[in-house]
């Protein structure tokens, strides 16, 4: 089996690499030393008419199957021979809609452990895209001139990076809270402005902050009200007063017993099937 596989692998270069329709395949290896290679499947990033995409049309390369050790910088270095690159973004899965706009705080949203990902590479010119699609490879992630850390060295670097700088964290927190406080203050001011002012149809919005606070509009609160109503009704009801009520309770009891009996029988059946009655 293995021999056959090897042969096929050896034949591959002549035949050209297989790729899904619409994609072209570029072999990628970690370094010279590796025998086998993964394949990047690349195509032009296109969206159906009407869908919005933040990636520029005609010059964005969509890359599938980016190995975990291949970082953004790395990809940008590998593809830069094709043409100047505007931006590279790696993502968990293809996401047409939008890339996250606001930059994440490095303290609060640490980078996840990478797996196989997809990439969007935006070239500055459409020519870069064409060159990239024709790329033959194999690409080497780690070379003499640009070694990429992996294994123990990478973990040590990650650990070093993870030791935080308290001052930077404080600054980060303070800036966030400042903007947050500002936002809240604005909202408050707006709410205060609207307080008691009827809208165009004449409705007045009642809020928690008014002179007479009302129940918050939560699900829990409404459930509580319903529950109280139910209790009130139950208190008024008489139990086992009429003969029919009495009869019904009895019948209910019997039904319970029957149900229990059926359940038990089912359990016994199951236990018998599992030979649970062999004591030893």
């Amino acid at each position, binding site marked *: *089996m*293995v021999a056959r*596989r090897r042969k096929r692998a050896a034949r591959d270069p002549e035949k050209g690499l297989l*790729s*899904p329709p619409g994609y072209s395949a570029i072999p990628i290896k*970690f370094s010279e030393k*590796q*025998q086998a290679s*993964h394949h990047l*499947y690349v195509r032009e990033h296109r969206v159906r008419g009407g869908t919005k995409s933040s990636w520029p049309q005609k010059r964005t390369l969509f890359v*599938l*199957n980016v*190995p*975990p*050790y291949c970082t953004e910088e790395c990809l940008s270095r590998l593809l830069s021979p094709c043409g100047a690159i505007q931006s590279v973004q790696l993502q968990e899965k*293809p996401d047409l809609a939008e890339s996250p706009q606001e930059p994440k705080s490095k*303290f*609060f949203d640490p980078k*996840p*452990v990478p*797996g*196989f990902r997809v990439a969007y590479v935006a070239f500055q010119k459409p020519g870069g895209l064409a060159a990239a699609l024709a790329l033959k490879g194999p690409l080497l992630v780690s070379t003499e001139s640009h070694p990429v850390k*992996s294994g*123990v*060295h990478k*973990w*040590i670097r990650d650990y*070093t990076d993870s030791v*935080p*700088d*308290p001052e930077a*964290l*404080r600054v980060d*927190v303070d800036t*966030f*809270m400042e903007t*947050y406080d500002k936002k809240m203050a604005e909202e408050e001011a707006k709410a205060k402005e609207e307080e008691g002012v009827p809208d165009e149809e004449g409705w007045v919005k009642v809020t928690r902050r008014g002179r007479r606070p009302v129940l918050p*509009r939560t699900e*829990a609160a409404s459930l509580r009200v319903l529950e109280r109503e139910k209790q009130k009704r139950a208190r008024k009801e008489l139990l086992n007063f009429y003969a029919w009520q009495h*009869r019904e309770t009895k*019948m209910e009891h*019997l*039904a319970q*017993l*029957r*149900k229990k*009996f*059926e359940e*038990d*029988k*089912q*359990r*016994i*059946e*199951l236990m*018998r099937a599992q030979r*649970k*009655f*062999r*004591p030893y």
Partner: protein
Amino acid sequence: MGPAPAGAQHRGTAEEPEMMESALEGPVKEGKRDSSKKRPVAGSPVGLLQPVKLSRAELYKEPTNEELNRLRETESLFHSSLLRLQVEELLKEVRLSEKKKERIDAFLREVNQRIMRVPPTSETELTDQSWLPDGVRVPLHQVPYTVKGCFRFLAPAQVTVVGSYLLGTCIRPDINVDMALTMPREILQDKDGLNQRYFRKRALYLAHLAHHLAQDPLFGSVHFSYTSGCHLKPSLLLRPHGKDKHLVTVRLHPCPPREFFRLCRLLPSKNNVRSAWYRGQSLSGDGSPEPPTPHYNTWVLQDTALESHMQLLSTMLGTASGLKDGVALLKVWLRQRELDKGLGGFSGFIVSMLVAFLVSTRKIHTTMSGYQVLRSILQFLATTDLTVNGISLCSSSDPSLPALADFHQAFPVVFLDPSGHLNLCADVTASTYRQVQHEAQLSMALLDSRADDGFQLLLMTPKPMIRAFDHILHLCPLSRLQAACHRLKLWPELQDHGGDYVSAALGPLTTLLEQGLGSRLHLLAHSRPPVSEWDISQDPPKHRDSRVLTLGLLLRPEGLTSVLELGPEADQPEAAAFRQFWGSRSELRRFQDGAIREAVVWEAASLAQKRLIPHQVVTHLLALHADIPDTCVHYTGGFLDALIQGLKETSSTGEEALAAAVRCYDDLSRMLWGLEGLPLTVSAVQGAHPVLRYTEVFPPTPARPACSFYEHLRERASLLPRPDKPCPAYVEPMTVVCHLEGSGQWPQDAEAIRRVRAAFQLRLAELLMQQHGLQCRATATHTDVLKDGFVFRIRVAYQREPQILRETRSPEGMISLRDTPASLRLERDTKQLPLLTSALHGLQQQHPAFSGVARLAKRWVRAQLLGQEFTDESLDLVAAALFLHPEPFTPPSSPQVGFLRFLFLVSTFDWKNSPLIVNLNNELTAEEQVEIRSVFLATRTQLPVMVIITPQDRKSSVWTQNGPSPQILQRLVVLAAEALPVLEKQLMDPRGPGDIRTVFRPPLDMYDVLIRLTPRHIPRHRQAVDSPAASFCRGLLSEPGPSSLMPVLGYDPPQLYLAQLREAFGDLALFFYDQHGGEVIGVLWKPTSFQPQPLKASNAKGRMVVSQGGELVMVPNVEAILEDFAILGEGLVQAVEARSERWTV
């Protein structure tokens, strides 16, 4: 109720008998009913219980009289309908079928004829046995050989079937039929009761019979055995030939003719074995009276009473099927507890007589059901003490009858038969009786607790000694007991037991040990030598041939903490007895209260050693009083301790180290409480780490890093690992949750709360540094604090945060609460985990063995490379279940027995159909548990595979939400089922357990790829099951160094590597690793992901396109992936071994 419509009435009556029948007859009819009634079951997965759906018409139809009667009967006679059905099923399983009965009856008739045809012999002296043919040996040790009297063989005067077979109370498997052969009067002479003459004749009688029957082709095997283990009374076993070999064993018991022996000569106070004869001394006239031989007398009497007992039982049990059911159930109960076999066992016969006794005292009525009989007998056993107040079936008040007191003097347990002369419990030792009592008490408690699975625990769970007792001790070789008998001056007993030194020594030895172990001991039990069977051409086995005597100790945890045996004050007269009892170990000591007392002090520093004090006591006492050297005492109690011992420790199993960490945590929490300058006050400090509930396999040691070993990050006072050195020691921070008070100042926005918490983390670090001089390091989510070498990770929490994460606002502005993954995670980490931790911390205070059990269990699961799949908490809870729901056992007091029960629980629990309820702090009532079970059944499909319910978590089973998968759980079940018998066999081996680590070594042959790691970068390499002789220096000092820099925290390259592997290849393969120093990662390809996949962008991960049958599909790029394994773990990975070709598609 109104008159029922005719149709309904008719249908009801028609159905009722069918239901009864189906309950009795089997699944055929049941199946038919199923298909008509419970349609949903048809399409359900196999072996899964479904909620029952009955139509309204079914539920509310008019009841018939039969149905009402049955329901009423169930309610009054049984505990529940389930129990009733279960009992019926069990009885069906153990009862003999009619068909077999017929075959047995035919065989018995044949046997009867053959016996009658055995030819007589001419009369010879008893000592002249030359007439015996070559092929047969006398089945008795004839010591001393010379004895007066003559013997000849004559066919028996009468052959009767006695015992359980006729009564219909015998249970499968191994059906025995007892046949009493009445020897003709001509064989016997006067005074045959003396000096074993009767037993000699009995043995010769059997030998002759055996010789002739052995030649008969009817019998597949003819063997000798001892009647219930008594060495003076052989019996002959006959088994049919050919395929009926296992059908039945007929046991022949010769017995004397009726009223041959005079009862007054066989009173317990009478002597029937003369010392002069037995010891071969001529002078016995030195004035000392002959010692009584109560056991000898009893054995003679037993033979005379075979028939009368049979008659009594058949009149008592005769027609009452409930009583017979009861006896059968009791026999199963005894057998599961290994109480019924061997000499002095609490046999089925004794139980039957006990039923007869309770019938005669009207405590049991003949209309009672089997379950009620079982219950009444257990109740009786649990509440009476036959060692003090014996009972008697004899109703006559004849003054010539011996008094009960006489019997109490001669026997530990007294239960007289109707003749008033025979003690039915003569051979039952006090320990055996105590064990029966103990079991009965446990069982009653279980029945009274109305547990749902009482039946299962009571009658279906075996309780082998190794799993029932905390410590086990083997005495072997048994020949040492002979010397012990002499040392203990037990000559009269030997004479009485006909030289059986094992049973003669048993009583005194157990009394000795019970006295010595005192408050440490709850119960001492001994094994009964198995009843051996031997070929008729061989000599009977010697007393020592049963090889080993096993004692089981059930320890009292509260007694285990003391190292002191306090004696009387020195000037008291009891002091001499104390000194005599303890020998050289007893010493005079002056105590704090000024008293000067005799005392024994044992050497034990740690809890593990204290647990093993009984070992010291036992060896000391046995050597001192019974001359049994410690080489003959094989104590099994602490063999598994080695697996949870730290690297350099050999004396402790880590409880002390854990306690030290917990004390340090207590200090820290006090500091947090008293912290000044926090804007909000601390409202609670709670531990949330396994160390803080005593269940971390290897307790943390104070970290004292050697600075030269590390890179320094001066400005942040932290140490960093260096690439050119081996991986530094692993320090895991202990999580502590610190709740801050609620306040209007908290923002109401999730993101903002996180920022505020981060600000608190920073502030906390600052204040701890300023006020207490602790080294701290704050991050956005936690603050690491270095205190006395321990590192704690404080997480600030705000009570309302999960609530806020749950809030969603509907378009109408209604705020509703919906669980989100983030809110669940936060709630689990800050609310449920601390609660669990404190509950288990409490459990450890009640049961000191909890820590050891939980850690052994966790260690084993991890050693099997399954640690990743089971959360710490779920395994802790399973271990806690062993303590909170020990039935039918008692809570374990040693890690060993607890671990065995863990394996048993894991391998036998029906995870599919029942939740494991762990009733922490006993908060769940019985009704709530029933409710939980029914909810469980209704929502089974939405619940995880393994469901563990606690009072704090009644529905969702938080700790098993993310695993294990069904396959992994199944794997664990299989592994546990395989490990349990292996380990039990090792521990029960008197020669020592051999390699105790066998069951902790994982099988590696199932994995497709093995990734071998280099020990240099495995920080916990030394914790491996097979600890390496040498490992790398991990940059720790043995003395506290000057450095107060933060050590490297949580840096474990194999774990980091695994995280990467799982992220990158998680959907192609499973990765298995033992975090405690494993050197190998097992990789298992997922078969499903190796199916060729269609071309899709989301499928591309790690795959490549190939053409298969002209079609383009995606398959995993295995060669590249194997190389990726090496790349991702550069420096850590030594080799990647692909071992199977299974991936080739």
